[in-house]
């Protein structure tokens, strides 16, 4: 009898023990909103003419990536979209299980129609793993203000954090306004002018924790032209400007060069150096009348030099996506 009671109790205990059920996977629907306006919001304070930086021409779109990586740096979600402009937002719902993630948002301009359709000013590679993620400048084409690269990483704690995440994308580099004042000062002696920088970071690589660094490829110690050659004979404007965008770099040199009518290249006036910092605005200006060349950070509002000529003309907009010409 005792044996039977024991067996009965054991049977019940076994049944109850067998009901320790396994976990199910529980995930959260995380709503990501990528806000690209913060890429240009600071730069826009220094645009020479309203809309130069904030607006995109009809032929361009803002290519936007949202990449979500798990704690091991493996890609779990990838989404791309061509936004109309910087005021548009990209909304993506991602289903994620509880845990820690790194979300990376990347924005850059692409040309979707017109003469240079298909041109991308930056390219993204190695997206499968965060540690392999690389963004590389397409140095073969003119980008001007449309060469701005936006990057932002966010750490996301699913389960313990928010389910709605807004990523305010920040510029990955610096913005430069290039000026020529008194363009026709040496019309009889000069064929064209062109600004250069001596070294430049050309790509961004990410580490496994989502931080990124700008890289300078020392094997290509080239001189990078900041804008197309400016041939005074083709312009009646007195003051012209363009925009450029650079990844952060320490000290780098800037210089204006001119091709004289006797086919000699000369470096004009001073050759300033600058410390290119992320998110900062600079101007690189040459006044042919006063023979001054300056490279300086723009801080509050538009520069004094910009105000000097309300008729300044942006030469860059018409050249977006065109091949960089061989200059020498």
């Amino acid at each position, binding site marked *: 009898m005792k044996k039977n009671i024991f067996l009965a109790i054991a049977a*019940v205990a076994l049944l109850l023990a*067998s*009901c320790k*059920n396994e*976990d*199910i996977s529980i995930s959260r629907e995380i*709503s990501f909103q990528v806000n690209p306006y913060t890429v240009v919001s600071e730069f826009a304070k220094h645009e020479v003419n309203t809309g130069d930086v904030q607006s995109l021409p009809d032929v361009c779109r803002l290519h936007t990536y949202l990449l979500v990586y798990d704690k091991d740096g493996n890609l779990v979600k990838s989404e791309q979209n061509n936004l109309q402009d910087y005021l548009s937002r990209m909304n993506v719902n991602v*289903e994620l299980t509880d845990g820690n993630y790194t979300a990376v948002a990347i924005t850059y301009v692409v040309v979707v129609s017109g003469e240079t359709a298909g041109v991308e000013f930056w390219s993204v590679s190695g997206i499968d793993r965060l540690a392999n993620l690389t963004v590389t400048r397409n140095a073969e084409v003119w980008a001007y203000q449309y060469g701005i690269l936006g990057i932002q990483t966010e750490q996301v704690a699913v389960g313990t954090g928010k*389910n709605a995440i807004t990523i305010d994308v920040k510029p990955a580099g610096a913005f430069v306004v290039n000026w020529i004042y008194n363009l026709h000062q040496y019309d009889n002696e000069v064929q064209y002018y062109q600004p250069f920088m001596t070294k430049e970071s050309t790509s961004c690589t990410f580490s496994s924790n989502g931080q990124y660094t700008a890289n300078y490829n020392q094997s290509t110690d080239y001189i990078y032209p900041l804008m197309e050659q400016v041939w005074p004979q083709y312009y009646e404007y007195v003051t012209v400007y363009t925009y450029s965008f650079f990844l952060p770099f320490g000290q780098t040199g800037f210089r204006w060069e001119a091709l004289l009518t006797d086919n000699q290249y000369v470096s004009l006036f001073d050759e300033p150096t600058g410390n290119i910092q992320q998110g900062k605005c600079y101007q690189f200006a040459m006044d042919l009348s006063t023979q001054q060349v300056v490279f300086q950070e723009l801080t509050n509002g538009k520069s004094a030099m910009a105000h000097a000529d309300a008729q300044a003309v942006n030469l860059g907009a018409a050249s977006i996506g065109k091949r960089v010409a061989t200059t020498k």
Partner: protein
Amino acid sequence: MRKQLLLVLLAVVCASGLFAQCEDDRPLRIGVGPKLGLGLDMGSHSKVQNLNFGKGFGYQAGAVVNAHFGRRYDMSCGGTGWVGLQLEALYGSRAVKLGDASLRTNCLEIPVLAQVYVIPNLAIEAGATMVKVLSTSPTQLLHDGTIYNTGEIKGSDVMISAGVAYKSPIDSNSSWMVDARFNLGMSPLAGNFDTKVSSIMVSFAYLFNIVK
């Protein structure tokens, strides 16, 4: 007046069992037959996920084996005693509400119940119902921005069951049975989804007497 009417009905019910015509003298009656039931399902509050479940409607269908032992009195027919045992094999579908959504679990249920016939045809029954979840619908449940992959619920439970059953006066070949039962869920649906499903079921069974 109503109380008197009830007493009369009760007396008729009792008498029908006591004085039925007996065909043989076996002290056991076993009936086998189909069973259908409808019920109200309740999900307990999930502390881990902080979810409040609402009630939903479920159903069950299957087969029942009912054994009724002994004789109530010396002159009574066999299978009219105080004790019975009931074994069922059911397909059950239960539903609980979560917000606007409904989580339905489809299960194999095996209730094993001891019955005590407090009066000849009316039994109090108690026992355990073994439950194995076969499938769920939907397989993903979205609630407040959280997605529960309910399709992964494949657990089991041993519910504590108790209720009352009324078995019709015994015919030579068949009888029918109505029962009302409360099943108390004892195990969470999943380790991290600590909702236990309980139910109140009302069911009808038709029994063919195979041993009489």
